Each structure stands twice: as structure tokens, then as C-alpha cells.
């Protein structure tokens, strides 16, 4: 048996000028509309998302249509650019249905390869941010096999899906069934979206119940499985960039706090025990950036290496984000345990993200298969 060989084309792991410009635009918008007090206020309100923020991000900056070709009303950019948006959304723990709608649902519709009809119509709506669509499977699902398919009886859908991310904000549900992929309007008769109490308050979850719900069939069984797999792969791959942005914020804020906070007549950040922990975290963040960029570049270029690049990024970045958030709480001391300080939002998001689209352990199992390191 032979070891898998290295990809022939070296991935581009840097940021382009256009990506830096996009980052600056998103960061500036989030600084204006989505600072920590705004996020705290939002999660205690009834509306999961700030509609004005979403409109500015999705339509104003055009972030929602980055993956969509220009002829379908999108920006014709790609995963590298979407990854930069996600880094900024992670850095701000911004509540916005970007990953679920602008990445996963959009990727699924693109993978269906339709040139007209309901698929392209929905894509146009997603690209401009007019509508939000989410895949109606548990947020923890790594593969289409882990999804809970609904049943179809005489063109009406039946079934219950739990833990569906961003469903409370969705206009349209993409429902995988044994009979193919359906689009279901959340406002239609027979559709119930029951919000759950999520660990991560910045990304709402819901149980979706379909009882004789009407749906539009978008694809048959085989194309649906392929497209959903593709959507989950993109979701997992770009989630790594959200985790990277989140980890960076935790490190930056921890460094800032420990420089300012004095104990024993010294800044606590001058104690070697703390410095080493932050330096170690910096090394993890630097490494996470390489892994996340590699996954985004593989998705963007359609590299044969994509499944491995995504699994490596998830297996690594999930742990880095959680570690950064946990260190952030500890090194902030008591203030890190308070509701007023945003650190808890980052810990909750990091921990929930570590389960989203498969845990690090799930992704290591994928790697074992891909690089031929089988279990006993």
C-alpha cells in the first residue's frame, strides 16, 4: 500500500488584495452595527437576527452572493472570499444566517446544476439576501446519511427534524427526503418551526415539524444526496474560517486584558506562566489559519484534495477555537464569568461550532479512511 501523494498544485494560503478589501468592509459594518452590547441585546430579544444588519451585509456588501455566478445575481467570487466573511462574523460572534443560507443552502442549490426553474429562482433570492434558506437536518450532521429524511406521501411532506440551525430565521427549508430534495416555505400550512433553547445563543436552533406540508421537488434522490453532501462539505470547510476568526478575537482580547490588568504590582501578562499559554495559543491560531485557508482554497479550486483539506481543517480548528475561548475565560479571571463580558458568547459559539457539521473525532475518522490509516 502506498501513502497518498501530495497535491500537485500548491494551494494559495495567502489573502488577495480583493479579500483584504472585502474583510475591511465587513469588519467596518460589524463594528458599526454588531458590537458586543448589540449582540448581547439581540440574543435576549425575540428576533434572532437584526434585519438591517443582514440587509447591509447580504445586499449592501453583496456577501450573500459571493458563491453565486453573476448571471444568477451573485458576485461570481468564491469560497476564499466567503471564508474571509466568515472569519469576520466569527470575530464578532455575529448573529447572521450566513453559514447556513449563503454557504450551505447556496452550495446545495449550485450543486444541482439547474439552469432555470425553481432552483435558480431560489438562488437569486438567496444571493441578494431577499430570502434565507436552511438545510433541514440537524446542525451536527456530517453527512447526508446522518440527516433525518422526511417522508413524502402524495406530494405532501411528513416528518420531524431536530436541531436545525437558523430555522427560526428561514423563509425556505431545504428538506432531503427518500424521494429527493424539496423546498418548503416556512409560512406554509403544515409547517411548524419550534425554537429550542440553544447553547450558542447567537445561532438559533429549532425543531421543524412537517405535517402534510406542501413542497416543491428540486431534485431526485441521487442528485439530492450528491448536492447535500457538497453543501455539508462546504459548510464544514468554511466553518473553519469562522472558528479561526473567533479564536483570533479570544487571543487578542486576552492579550489586551492581561496587559492592562495588574496584580502583585505587575501586569498579569508579564508572568511567564500566562505568557507561555498565550504564545502557545498564538501558535495554534497561526496553524489554524493555514488549515482554514487550505480548506477554502481547495473548495474554491475544486481540488481533488478537498475532502481531506476540509476534514483536516475541522479536526484542527474546532479544537483551537474551543481552547482559545476556554483560555479567554480563565485568563480574564472573574470578569470572564460575567454575563456583561462577551467572553461567554465566544465560548458558547466555539463549543457549538465544535459539534456543527461533525465533531473533530468524526473528521478524524474521515481522515483515517482518506489517508489509509485504518482502525484496528
Amino acid at each position, binding site marked *: 500500500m502506498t501513502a497518498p501523494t501530495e497535491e500537485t498544485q500548491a494551494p494559495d494560503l495567502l489573502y488577495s488584495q480583493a479579500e483584504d478589501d472585502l474583510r475591511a468592509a465587513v469588519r467596518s459594518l460589524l463594528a458599526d452595527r454588531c458590537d458586543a452590547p448589540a449582540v448581547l441585546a439581540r440574543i435576549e430579544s425575540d428576533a434572532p437576527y437584526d434585519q438591517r444588519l443582514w440587509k447591509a451585509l447580504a445586499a449592501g456588501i453583496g456577501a450573500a452572493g459571493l458563491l453565486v455566478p453573476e448571471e444568477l445575481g451573485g458576485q461570481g467570487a468564491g469560497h476564499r472570499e466567503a471564508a474571509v466573511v466568515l472569519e469576520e462574523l466569527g470575530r464578532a460572534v455575529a448573529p447572521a444566517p450566513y453559514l447556513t443560507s449563503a454557504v450551505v443552502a447556496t452550495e446545495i442549490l449550485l450543486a444541482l446544476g439547474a439552469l432555470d426553474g425553481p432552483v435558480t429562482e431560489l438562488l437569486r433570492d438567496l444571493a441578494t439576501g431577499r430570502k434565507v434558506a436552511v438545510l433541514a437536518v440537524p446542525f451536527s450532521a456530517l453527512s447526508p446519511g446522518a440527516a433525518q429524511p422526511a417522508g413524502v406521501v402524495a406530494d405532501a411532506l411528513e416528518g420531524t427534524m431536530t436541531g436545525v440551525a437558523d430555522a427560526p430565521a428561514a423563509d425556505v427549508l431545504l428538506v432531503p427526503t427518500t424521494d429527493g430534495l424539496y423546498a418548503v416555505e416556512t409560512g406554509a400550512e403544515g409547517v411548524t418551526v419550534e425554537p429550542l433553547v440553544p447553547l450558542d445563543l447567537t445561532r438559533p436552533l429549532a425543531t421543524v415539524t412537517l405535517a402534510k406540508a406542501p413542497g416543491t421537488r428540486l431534485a431526485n434522490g441521487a442528485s439530492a444526496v450528491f448536492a447535500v453532501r457538497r453543501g455539508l462539505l462546504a459548510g464544514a470547510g468554511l466553518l473553519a474560517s469562522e472558528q479561526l476568526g473567533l479564536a483570533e478575537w479570544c487571543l487578542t482580547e486576552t492579550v489586551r486584558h492581561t*496587559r492592562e490588568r495588574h496584580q502583585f504590582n505587575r*501586569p498579569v501578562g508579564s508572568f511567564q506562566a500566562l505568557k507561555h499559554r498565550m504564545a502557545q495559543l*498564538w501558535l495554534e491560531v497561526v496553524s489554524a489559519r493555514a488549515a482554514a485557508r487550505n480548506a477554502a482554497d481547495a473548495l474554491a479550486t475544486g481540488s481533488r484534495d478537498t475532502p481531506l483539506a476540509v476534514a483536516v481543517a475541522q479536526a484542527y480548528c474546532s479544537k483551537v477555537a474551543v481552547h482559545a475561548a476556554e483560555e479567554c475565560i480563565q485568563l480574564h479571571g472573574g470578569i470572564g464569568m460575567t454575563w456583561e463580558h462577551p467572553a461567554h458568547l465566544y465560548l458558547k459559539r466555539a463549543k457549538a461550532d465544535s459539534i456543527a457539521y461533525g465533531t473533530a473525532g468524526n473528521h478524524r475518522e474521515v*481522515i483515517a479512511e482518506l*489517508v489509509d*490509516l*485504518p482502525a484496528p
Partner: protein
Amino acid sequence: MTTPDAAELRRRTQELLAAHPPATTDRTDFLKARFDAGLAWVHYPAGLGGLDAPRSLQSVVDTELAAAGAPDNDPRRIGIGLGMAAPTILGYGTDEQKQRFLRPLWVGEEVWCQLFSEPGAGSDLAALGTRAVRAGEDWVVDGQKVWTSSAHLARWAILIARTDPDQPKHRGISYFICDMTDPGVEVRPLRQITGEAEFNEVFLTGVRIPDSRRLGPVGEGWKVAQTTLMNERVSIGGARIPREGGMIGPVARTWRARPELRTHDLHQRLLGLWVEAEVARLAGTRLRQQLVAGQPGPEGSGMKLAFARLNQEISGLEVELLGEDGLLYSDWTMRRPELVDFTGHDAGYRYLRSKGNSIEGGTSEVLLNIVAERVLGLPAEPRNDKDVPWKDLTR
């Protein structure tokens, strides 16, 4: 003379090859001719093995010479001379010193070693206690150095010694070139954890060094040593490696070839380390891309940290994976290798030798401090050794 471009260097290389055909020329004679033609290190000054050309054009010369089957100087064996002594002599040496030392150094006729570390001065190198006392035109040196690779092969050494104990520790140091064949220089092999004696201890007893072999002004040896040390760290993390190219390679191959060794615990640990090795490789790739794009980041200082820990964890796993075979060791016979060679040995050697990866060239603890202070901007710990005369410090 104008700065030569690639075409000019190619022309000069062909001239060298025509005048000294590699097939019929003695190796050392060819290397001397190459040095004299200014094609040794093209960014060095004319007359000192170079042509004042951009450093990046060295590859033009190297490619032409390799294609013609020309002999190379062995940069691994003479690494300390090439990588550390030469740039320091170029930066601080007199004309006479440059003329005397650079050519035989580059040709490999004279091997160099580095007399910096001492039993009481490792991470805190500036605390060194080896004394150099002025005696007429000479300095008389007494002290002990340690961790000196190649000392048993070396003709020359770069040496730092204390010339003014009344000054604070960084200010009373001077930098010398020491002749390893002089009376009073004694080299003893230092046998290590692997059984090999890869390093030496060097004892200096009344060694007389003429003042003409001092590098830089008296008392400014610490500044000169910074040039040497910066050049030491330049190469770390620079190599391009393929997937499974590092220490993870042998473990992964053993895993595939020997299913009977597999356990669930080892599988989990192997996959975790495989991921970390792959990510470290990608971080190295990203670092190189940043350098090429002219955006050098501080990531380089982190790569050595990552590889030290990974090498140690992976080789530890490898010994355990081998089970019964992991109880054995290839050979404890005392040997004196000229080079460190991880892959030419068994798992037990890799496990033991990699323990040094977090100590040599700056301990991981010191590197973490450097990252914390220079990259993250965290405050330094209070120091009590900066303004105190060296002779009054606790030792």
C-alpha cells in the same frame, strides 16, 4: 564594476566550467577556482568569493554547475562556518581577516566550530564566564565551553569571552577567532542520551589569542554575537516537505504495513498527530508564500516550537507502536557522527534525539517568551541582572 545580472552570471559560470572541466579537475582545485571566479556566494564582495550580485541569483550559478556535474562544497559538514562564522567575519572582520579566513572556509579545507555555550550559560548566554585577559599583543583565555559540534574536526572557532567583569554582563564581552590547534585547547567528546558523542566539551587553559584575531571592538562582542545568532535561526522552518514528509512518515508506514500492532488508543493518538503534522506542514507552506510575497510574518519563530513538540510526541508514539521491537535499541556503541541523521536510525534513536529539539538553538521556553514579548507585545518579566556588574551577579 556594475552589478552582474543572470545572463552575466551564466556566462561566467560557463567560463569557469570551460577552464576547469569538472571531469578532469581535482575537487578542491575546482572549488578554489570557483571561489576565485566570484561564483561561491555571489552576494559577497568581489575578491571574497562573490560579485556583489543579488543573493537570489545564486540559484542561477548553482543550477548551471549542478547540470555540468560540478562538485559542491558540502554545506552540511561545514555548516557552522558557512552559516555562522562567515557572515560574522564579513560583517565585523578586518580586510586581513576576510582574506585569510573566507576562502578556506568556503572550500571546506578548514572546518569551524562555535565556542559560545557554557555549563553555566545556556539560555542565559550573556552570563558566560570564560575569561580573556589582555597580555601585551595577546589575550589569555581560560574557561570551559560545551555543546560544541564539530570541535573535534575544527581548525578554527568563533569564541565569545568576558574581557571586563566590572561591566554589566552584556557589555563586558569580546569576540575572538580561536585556533583549535593551539596549546591549551582540549576537546573531549560529550557522550549523550543516544549513546553517540555528537557534541564536545572544550576546555581552554591559558590559550593565547593574538589581538589581531579579535572580531569587532573590545567589549562589543555581544553585539557581534547577535549577527551570528540571527544567522543561526534563519534556516529553521525553511525546508519544503511533502505530506508525511517528516517524522509522521515512518509511523504511518508502520501502521499500514503491520496491522497486528494496531490498538484503538494508538489509532486515536496517531490520527491526532497526523492532523497536527499536516497542519504544521501547511503553516510552513504559508510562511514560505509570505516570504515570497514580501510579507514576512512572525510565524517563523513559531515553527521550531511546533516541530520540536511534534517530533517528540510522534517518536514517542512510534516506540510504543512497535511494542516488543520498541524494547530494543539499534546500537549503544560510542560513535562520533559528523551530522545529525534522524531517518537513518531506528525509532528509539528518534525518540531520544528529538528530546534535544526543544533545547538546542533556543529552548522552547525561551522561544515562547520571545513570541509573547515580540509578537504579542506582552510585558517582560522584571529583571535584576541588567545594570549589575557581571562580577556581582549570583552564579
